[in-house]
């Protein structure tokens, strides 16, 4: 007769095995941990030699602190230098503002023209986010269709590729002709650019689920829907989010291109058409102001996508893992 492992015994063994492992130099290291573990061991031995003061550890911490400050300080410093010399050059060389406006002048324009720039920003943002939203919906639906049905993929994938590789600038005028609403045409244009990375990434993601887990799902008689929801969907999430980061940037590019090509036809309200118009009028202050806002919007979109990605993955995915070392 024997008894099952009692909880106390069980956890005792565990604690022990956790302590044992790193000490055993012959132990197979857990993949991905090798560098960290060995480094930790060496540094802790060094520490004992120097009267228990962990010099190595402290040096590393200091290094990390310096890097984290430099990450902000260096680009800011560079910005100040660049903008400063720009301002100095324009002032000293007396460059006329319709050739190169000074940073101060651009800042003034930003404030003075805010009444024009802000609605333009909203319009471009609306176009970008709507395009991104439809890209997500379309990309996801198509990716699921592709992985559920071999035939759907065989039939449609070439066209998805063709749509992707044809430059959107070349399609935009056509859209303008055939689609009555300029807004819808612009939306289609931005959507075309943004949806492919989502489709391509999600398709690969859905196919990348661990094959042993797939077998396990089959053994337990999982339905297609259960497999999609509990296995292939979550496996595809990191891939989808990678595609989303790219698509966010592309949606903005698509929106800008659409405004350049289509927006000119009277409905031009967005930042890009404002920029274009300013360039015709040699209003370079406003041109730069619009350009800066477009860039800032791109950065904001990237930041937002990165944040979403982090929030969804940080608990479990390697990409969002912070390792000490």
């Amino acid at each position, binding site marked *: *007769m*024997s*008894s*099952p*492992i009692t*909880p106390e*015994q*069980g*956890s005792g*063994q*565990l604690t022990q*095995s*956790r302590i*044992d*492992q790193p000490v*055993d130099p*012959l*132990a*197979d290291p*857990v993949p991905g941990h090798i560098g960290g573990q060995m480094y930790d061991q060496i540094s802790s031995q060094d520490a004992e030699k120097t009267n228990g003061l962990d010099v190595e550890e402290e040096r590393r911490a200091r290094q990390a602190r310096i890097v984290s400050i430099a990450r902000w300080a260096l680009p800011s410093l560079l910005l100040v230098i660049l903008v400063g010399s720009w301002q100095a050059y324009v002032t000293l060389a007396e460059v006329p503002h319709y050739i190169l406006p000074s940073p101060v002048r651009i800042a003034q324009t930003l404030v003075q023209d805010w009444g024009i720039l802000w609605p333009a920003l909203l319009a471009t943002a609306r176009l970008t986010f709507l395009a991104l939203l439809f890209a997500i919906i379309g990309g996801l639906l198509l990716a699921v269709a592709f992985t559920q049905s071999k035939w759907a993929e065989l039939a449609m994938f070439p066209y998805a590729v063709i749509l992707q590789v044809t430059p959107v600038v070349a399609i935009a005028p056509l859209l303008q002709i055939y689609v009555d609403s300029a807004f819808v045409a612009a939306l289609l244009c931005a959507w075309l650019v943004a949806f492919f990375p989502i489709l391509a990434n999600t398709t690969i993601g859905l196919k990348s689920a*661990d094959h*042993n*887990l797939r*077998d*396990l*799902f*089959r*053994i*337990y*008689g*999982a339905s297609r829907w*259960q497999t999609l929801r*509990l*296995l292939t969907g*979550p496996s595809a*999430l990191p891939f989808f989010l990678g595609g989303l980061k790219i698509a966010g940037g592309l949606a903005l590019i698509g929106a800008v291109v659409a405004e350049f090509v289509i927006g000119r036809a009277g409905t031009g309200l967005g930042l890009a058409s404002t920029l274009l118009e300013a360039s015709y009028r040699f209003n370079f202050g406003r041109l730069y102001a619009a350009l800066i806002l477009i860039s800032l919007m791109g950065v904001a979109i990237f930041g937002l996508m990165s944040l979403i990605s982090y929030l969804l993955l940080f*608990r*479990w*995915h*390697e990409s969002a*893992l912070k390792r000490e070392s």
Partner: protein
Amino acid sequence: MTSSAREPLGQRPELLRMSRIGKTFGGQVVALNDLSLSVQQGDFISLLGPSGCGKSTALRLIANLIQPTAGSIEWQGGQGEGDLGVVFQEPTLMPWARVKDNVWLPFRLRGQSYSSVADKIERALSLVGLQDFKDAFPRELSGGMKMRVSIARALVTRPRLILMDEPFAALDEITRHKLNNDLLSLRESIGCTVIFVTHSVFESVFLSDRIVVMAASPGRVVGELTVDAPYPRSDAFRTSAEYAASASEASAMLVRAMEHAA
């Protein structure tokens, strides 16, 4: 069920019979040829053989993941839901799910809510000594602990048969010994039948009462060896004369199996 309640080897009621199984991949690779095996309730069978001799293929056939080219597999009284548990060489956990949700999976796929099986999940986790880690994510666990979760998931439905395909091959020697011991205690407490694939003669002798030795090209059974030492087996068994004798016998059979193939 405990060891004393188990019938002597060969007199146990049959659980599963594989008759003259053949499996050919793509019309050319003969992975298994004429394999027959009677699995009886309470057996701990090790499949021991060189790489490529069709051990994994045999398990996949039993799990109904692939169909045999020839022969048949019959479960006594048919195979019911949750009669089968599987442990792979890798822990094969869903990295996005907490430990308890990984163990919930077999029930979840049958449409059973967490709360309706929470006590079974808790019990399975405490059997493998992980009751304090049920809210952890797999990446927070060591390799051995992940394997324990995988085992808990395999046994949570109280299957009649558990298939294990080199489950401890990727672990270090110390962890492997520990898990071997724990696996035996586990089995004493839940009394399931196990088919265990391994490359290690010592592991097979320590764990099993039947060792089926296989040879490659084509994959087939070349002999069977019984290890009569009673369960429960402890570390003392590892140093016994009986253990050494069985290990050398199994090694000799394995050497002969390799010669057959050459």
